[in-house]
């Protein structure tokens, strides 16, 4: 059954990478929304250069998560699909709108007023998608999902429409904005833009702190034992402490103008937060009403399926990781060496 742990590790890493890379990607749209008209065009260009080559790859992490769930953990996949149908559809609409608007605005052969429409759709969808993503994640651990519920409201609405889930949604949105600003600081070439993104990084960080506080308050209101999860065990405490220290360090280095190390720190923080949340009730990642839960170990697919899935993932990553690394590296590296902005292909 070690293979089961391989699969779980892939699941966890895929979720983390989607949060980080997809998050920065969503965040870029959020930042654009909160940028003054004057600077929007520049932000857009920076962003296109920064995420254009890899955005297709970013959203693959989500597909990997879904596939691992439906092959390896079908009960979790189907329970969430049934009871969280509505927020899932919300997220899907966001993904459709965002993905197509991003491409349309870059590849439309004629540049005219339609650009305004694409931009608007892109920016709003960039907020909606992580909002629902957060709501779904929050609902999965909120203990509000009741697979046995009879009434429509209980089964399909209150499973996700509660203070806690919505607060987690807002928290996710602000985290995405934060990740994007940190990422974009290293992508711009002029000092003025660096300053702008630094300010954005600080404001989104404060927004995340406020939203985080809401999450705690909402958890109290909804009876979610969040405090206990985060602080009830040494790993949780250590992870939160590490995240806090790295945050302080990040603010300091931000003012010093370090561009790359702050990325690492921001990524580290998200990793620690995810670790703290998942560690406590692992392997029961979905908590249901009345103290029931869906477990990664008991509810998993038969051994042979898990084995082949793990092999597929391992072999797949042998191909994928070097290529992905080279793609990211090349576009980072060449930009600095060559220095001239690329026209789009």
């Amino acid at each position, binding site marked *: 059954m070690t293979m089961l742990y391989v699969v779980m590790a892939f699941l966890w890493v895929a979720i983390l990478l989607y949060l980080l890379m997809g998050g920065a990607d969503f965040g870029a749209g959020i930042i654009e929304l909160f940028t003054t008209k004057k600077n929007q065009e520049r932000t857009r260009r920076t962003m296109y250069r920064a995420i254009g*080559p890899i955005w*297709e790859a970013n959203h693959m992490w989500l597909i*990997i998560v879904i*596939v691992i769930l439906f092959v390896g953990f079908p009960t979790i996949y189907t329970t969430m699909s049934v009871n969280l149908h509505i927020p*899932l559809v919300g997220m899907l609409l966001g993904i459709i709108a965002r993905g197509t608007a991003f*491409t*349309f605005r870059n590849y439309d052969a*004629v540049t005219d007023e339609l650009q305004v429409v694409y931009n608007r759709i892109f920016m709003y969808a960039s907020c909606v998608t992580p909002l629902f993503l957060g709501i779904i994640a929050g609902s999965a651990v909120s203990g509000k999902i009741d697979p046995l519920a009879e009434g429509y409201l209980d089964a399909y609405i209150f499973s996700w429409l509660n203070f806690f889930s919505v607060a987690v949604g807002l928290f996710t949105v602000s985290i995405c904005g934060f990740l994007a600003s940190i990422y974009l600081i290293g992508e711009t070439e002029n000092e003025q833009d660096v300053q702008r993104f630094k300010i954005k990084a600080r404001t989104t960080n404060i927004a995340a702190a406020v939203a985080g506080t809401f999450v705690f308050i909402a958890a109290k209101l909804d009876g979610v034992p969040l405090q206990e999860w985060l602080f009830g065990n040494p790993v949780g405490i250590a992870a939160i402490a590490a995240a806090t220290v790295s945050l302080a360090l990040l603010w300091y280095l931000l003012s010093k103008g370090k561009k790359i190390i702050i990325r690492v720190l921001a990524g580290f923080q998200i990793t620690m937060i995810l670790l703290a949340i998942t560690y406590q009730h692992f392997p029961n990642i979905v908590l249901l009403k009345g103290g029931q839960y869906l477990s990664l170990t008991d509810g998993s697919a038969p051994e042979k399926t898990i084995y082949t899935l793990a092999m*597929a993932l391992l072999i797949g990553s042998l191909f994928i990781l070097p290529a992905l690394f080279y793609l990211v590296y090349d*576009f980072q590296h060449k930009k600095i060496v060559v220095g001239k902005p690329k026209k789009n292909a």
Partner: protein
Amino acid sequence: MDDFIAARSQMALSLGFHIVFSCIGMVMPFFMAVSHYYYLKTNQPVYRNVTKAWSKGVAIFFATGAVSGTVLSFELGLLWPKFMLHAGPIFGLPFSLEGTAFFIEAIALGFFLYGWDRFNKWFHWFTGVVVGVSGLVSGILVVAANAWMNTPTGFTFANGQYSDIDPIKAIFNPAWFSQSLHMSIAAFAATGFAVAGIHALMMLKRKNVVFHTKAFKIAAVFGAAAAILQPLSGDISAKFVARTQPAKLAAMEAHFTTEKSASLIIGGIPDEKNKEVNYALKIPGGLSFLANGDFKSEVKGLDSIPEEERPPVAISHYAFQIMVALGMIMMGIAIMYFIAVIRKKQWRNSRWLLQLFVWATPLGFIAVEAGWTVTEVGRQPWIIYGVMKTKDAVTPMPGIVYSFYLFSAVYLSLALIVIFMLYRQIKMVDKLYDIPAGEQVKN
């Protein structure tokens, strides 16, 4: 409309939408690789322009294909949770391998689209080829998953329990080869004809003739070759369906009663009440021959299938007729094209041949949609043939009708935008890729 019909319609709509984009995403990279190759070999800028113009169109299709595919991977659970609960661990492996293939495709696409003048030119060319190959592999894998729904293997089903699961056997289920082969060729035929048709139209309009002639040739050769192979592979499929899914064969042929020397019914209006087909052309013994390779053999009719396990006859029959008719027409055009290329040089740029291609632009895609209707509707009432009924798989959530309306609106608007953008791409060819007179090359 009740929720069950709505769920089926939403699934059909989403797949019918996705398939168009995935065919293009699968095949266009090969066209681009050929044109790119000519550019690297001959250094004629027109080939570079064709490659670049295509790659912009493809980027639009890729994005739309990717989001519609993402939607599908959720929809399987949103609409058919009870199917996925059992089927996921059995037929899910192709999807996880497909995940790898998509990933490679997405990375290679990043290299290809953003890599002009950046890398060694052959490495850059090679990334384009990788995009095509991994797209094709994804297509084959996902069709293998669908084939499993038609000929489920790799598990034991007893007393409502699924045990002895073997995902490798499930991928290589009996139908995987005939279906994947037929689908892959279909993608080339459909995309080839669609692209050739558009460029033929521009040639007739005398716009950027050099550019469009080169583009037309590449697409037409692929499309025509595939269109000639397609009926052969269709015959393999039909023989296979006759052996494994008699109900589907009977429905698509509107073959009501079991008989020896069954005749092949072409066209006609099936009358399900009186179990006959009116106004049809009947070729005696034809069906027996088609299904078993022997004019005298017996072919099972719908009467051999229990009433509640019969698929809808009319839809399956019409869809099958449409596919075969279009297949024959496309094969005819393809043969004429090859005659033009090989023997009758004077036909080559004649208006009527180009007009034929213009007229045939949508045919391949109509055939693709029709073919999938045969496969899916012909399997009804089963979602997993002989194992699970579609109505037992549907989500318990009420109100799917609204979700169907919502997705219909979304897909309709997306389709309109994509068509509009494609129109603009083509209109801009003049401005973006006009070749200075001195560089024009006789074709």
